[in-house]
Every structure is written in structure tokens, then in C-alpha cells.
């Protein structure tokens, strides 16, 4: 078991470059708009995030990463949380704004197969 605390990653807030923009246009990267405040402190409502899809054969997730995942109980709903702990191939996902977040504290550990991608860039609104 590996444990750790929230890790702020300044590189996520880098300016948008041509490569990333092109990657979005051709579908190599995806972008989503944030709704809600459970990641307040890092992400605010209306911010855009750019994420890279997880390669199930080559997992590169670490504690502190922000990930996009399917909601474990609501079909086709995407959620965004931070990796708080890793237990082999299951993940303890938490919102940075822990007082207003529904996360692994209620759902339990999240299986790798419902984690969609890892956030690479944050574009503030």
C-alpha cells in the first residue's frame, strides 16, 4: 500500500501550447468542463481540464494525480477527483474540498477499469 497527501502540481496550469491544442483537435487529448466544487482549491466550476486517456496496459497513475473516472453508481456520469491512495489496482479517490465531496469515503475503492484518464492541463475560466 502506498499512501500520500494531496500534491499540488503547478505544471497543470501551464499555458495552452499548439501541440496540446492540436492533440485535442485530432482527438488524442480530450477536454471537459468542470461542474461543482468538490475540487475547490484546485478546480473551480467552469474551469476546463484536458486529460489523456489511461492506457490500461501501461498505467502511470501516482498519488496526487487528478483523474477523470466514471461514477461508480451512476451510469455514464464522469467525475473528477484526486488519487489519495493506491492499493494495487484500486484507487482511493477524494475531492480536494473534502467537506463538499462525495468520493471513496462513501463509494469505497475505485477499480482501475472505470478510471478514464489523467488530467494533464487545467485552463481556468
Amino acid at each position: 500500500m502506498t499512501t500520500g497527501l494531496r500534491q499540488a502540481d503547478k505544471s497543470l496550469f501551464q499555458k495552452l501550447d499548439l501541440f496540446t491544442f492540436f492533440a485535442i483537435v485530432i482527438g488524442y487529448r480530450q477536454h471537459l468542463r468542470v461542474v461543482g466544487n468538490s475540487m475547490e482549491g484546485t478546480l473551480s466550476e467552469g474551469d476546463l481540464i484536458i486529460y489523456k486517456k489511461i492506457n490500461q496496459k501501461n498505467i502511470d497513475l501516482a498519488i496526487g494525480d487528478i483523474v477523470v473516472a466514471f461514477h461508480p453508481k451512476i451510469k455514464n456520469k464522469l467525475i473528477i477527483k484526486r488519487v489519495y491512495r493506491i492499493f494495487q489496482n484500486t484507487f482511493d479517490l477524494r475531492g480536494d474540498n473534502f467537506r463538499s465531496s462525495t468520493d471513496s469515503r462513501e463509494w469505497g475503492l475505485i477499480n482501475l477499469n472505470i478510471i478514464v484518464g489523467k488530467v494533464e492541463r487545467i485552463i481556468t475560466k
Partner: protein
Amino acid sequence: MLSETLTSILKKLPAKSVHAHCDGPCGVYDPASARIAAEAVLSMTKKLIALAPAGNDQASISAYNNTFSRFVAIKEEESQKTKKELLILWTDYFKPEHLSAYPDLHDTFWKAAKLCSACKVNIDQTKAEELLAAVQKIHSMFWSTKGRNDNWVTAS
């Protein structure tokens, strides 16, 4: 310059939503609904205690019985409503992290829920006042967790 232009274009592109919120209507919790119900319990309890038949004739007794039944029904309904509102706060809003700031959180809610039951089955002004005081304590805990210090204002 290029970055700003690209960002501006990206912001105008349609984007799916990713949810960073709770399953319920996030943040839409307020102990005010419990407070209103608890106030109603106290009010109905006082009215029941003060209620007396206008006379000894059949019409007065019937009117008294009718009003008494209605007051009891409302008191029981509001007691149940208070309990429901408190349980929502207890089980949905408050999280394990809040226990460190309020070690007596569970005890407070448990006793408040018990008072709801006591007010439902009895006509006891002391219990009704204790219930309102318990709701006030929960009000203070709740707003404190949000970093606020909202005043306790009653409707009656």
C-alpha cells in the same frame, strides 16, 4: 499571444461536463428546515397544554376533541419532520472529518432524535424546548463547519 488565442478558441468549443460535486444537490443543506419543524412542535405543545373546552355541553366537547386531535396530529407530524431533517444532516452532510472538531456530534444528533420521539408521543413542553435547544446546537455546528457564524433566528 498564441497561447491566449488557442485558449480563447478552446473555451468556445463545446465541452462535456465532468462532475466535481456530491451526489445530492451539493451544498443544499440547511438546519433551518429542522428549526422550523422543531418550532412547530414547541408551538403545538404549548397550544395543547393551554387548550380547554369552552363549556361542558356536547358542542363544546366535540369542538375541543376536534381541535385537540388536530393539534396532536400536527405535533406528531412536525416531530417526525424534525427527526427526518436532522437525520439528513447527520447522515448526509456531516462527514467523519467533522468529528475531530465536534467529538460529541453523534451524541448530539442521537439525543436530538430521541427528543423528537419524546415530543411525538408526549405533550411535554420541557422536552419540546430541549429539542429546540438541540437543533440550535446543531445549527451552530453546521454553520461552523462552513466557516460561518450565522445567527440563530426563530420564526416565532
